[in-house]
């Protein structure tokens, strides 16, 4: 096997069963598979009602039958994980891991307040946000992380506002570890999940880009290619922040043209030249912010 996938191959066992209800080609499957391998199917893995329910399935049959995962209602994970963590601590199980796989709608919108409170109280929880940039489970409405100018069912003319960047928001909360990831770079994702599980790095939050076949209107076989182009065009930069040090984890020397990424997705079929300039402008701003953080955290300022 390829050298770069060596870490991934260290856990050959599949803890996620293939019998769920996710769409063919759903990127969320890759996130869940590797997250479960990272905790080796033990301890607490929790999901909340959203597309995660498709990968969590119907208890006690379903993809998580081997792991046994509590499902909470939408918007609840901030409170539930806090309670579970404190209850485990007070009964002498501080070493048990609490790993949550939640959606972007949950983390950025309906559950945002509770998530912020949970991070502020520093409960030792690791979170992976399956970011399909919309409310996919309810049919593809816009969410807080839907990108600029993208089509969704509630923004048919393209979203007019830029998205929330969750890692930046939680860096302002002084979270110990936060990162962006993408399913096209699974070795990077796996390494980040492993780092997120270290007790000194918790609470941690990883926002993992996961293209959604029906709502981004892409060809199912190109799911990974779309995610890869997102990274390689600079649309979705991969970086991590770990207790005071900020670094890029995948550095793209020569960025591919944005159009290559956009043309594969039906949700950008309506964009004009001006829209593309706006998207590129947003991406340049994002790049500047990252450069700024790089300088700030290496104390060059």
């Amino acid at each position, binding site marked *: 096997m390829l050298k770069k996938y060596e870490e991934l191959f260290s856990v050959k066992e599949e803890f996620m069963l293939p*019998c769920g209800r996710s769409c063919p080609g759903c990127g969320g499957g890759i996130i869940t598979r590797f997250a479960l391998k990272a905790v080796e199917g033990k301890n607490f893995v929790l999901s909340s009602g959203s597309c995660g329910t498709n990968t969590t399935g119907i208890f006690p049959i379903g993809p998580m039958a081997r792991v046994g995962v509590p499902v909470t209602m939408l918007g609840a994970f901030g409170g539930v994980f806090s309670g579970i963590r404190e209850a485990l601590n007070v009964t002498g199980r501080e070493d048990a891991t609490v790993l949550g796989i939640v959606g972007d709608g949950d983390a950025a919108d309906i559950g945002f307040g509770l998530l912020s409170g949970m991070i502020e109280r520093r409960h030792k929880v690791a979170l992976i946000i399956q970011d399909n940039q919309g409310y996919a489970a309810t049919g593809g409405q816009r969410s807080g992380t839907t990108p600029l100018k993208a089509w969704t069912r509630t923004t048919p003319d393209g979203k007019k506002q830029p998205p929330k960047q969750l890692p930046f928001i939680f860096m302002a909360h002084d979270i110990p570890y936060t990162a962006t990831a993408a399913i096209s770079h699974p070795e990077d994702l796996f390494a980040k999940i492993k780092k997120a599980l270290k007790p000194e790095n918790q609470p941690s939050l990883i926002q993992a880009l996961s293209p959604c076949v029906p709502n981004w209107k892409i060809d199912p076989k190109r799911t990974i290619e779309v995610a890869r182009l997102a990274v390689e065009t600079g649309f979705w930069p991969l970086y991590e922040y770990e207790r005071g040090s900020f670094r890029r984890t995948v550095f793209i020397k020569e960025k591919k043209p944005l159009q290559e990424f956009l043309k594969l997705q039906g949700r950008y079929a309506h964009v004009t030249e001006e829209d593309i300039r706006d998207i590129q402008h947003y991406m340049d701003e994002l790049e500047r912010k990252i450069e700024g953080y790089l300088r700030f955290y290496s104390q060059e300022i």
Partner: protein
Amino acid sequence: MKIVKTFYETVDLVKRGDFDFGWRPETIEDLCQEGPRCLPSRGAPASVTPDFMMREYLPKFHKEKCNRCGTCWVFCPLGIIYEEEDGSYDYEVEFCRACGICAHECPTQAIEMVRLIK
């Protein structure tokens, strides 16, 4: 439970008082009777696998072209691709949803999406 087709059959049943009131679960365990019984080898229930799903294509693994890179194993969203003893790869047909990612990502084009003849 009788499945009644016509209006007059129903009228007849009511007149005769011949109703089967069904089964009442007593405990939570009663509810989940289906689960343990329908678990095949890896614990996935047959009722929610794509066995009854319409699949137009299915991947075909050409072992002779396989370079054992493991890319297909990494990128399968369901994790149904597995490594064999000789290092090449194969997949579990009954769970495949024919998304086509393995065929698209394979660097040596060793996987081909083949149209099923119906």
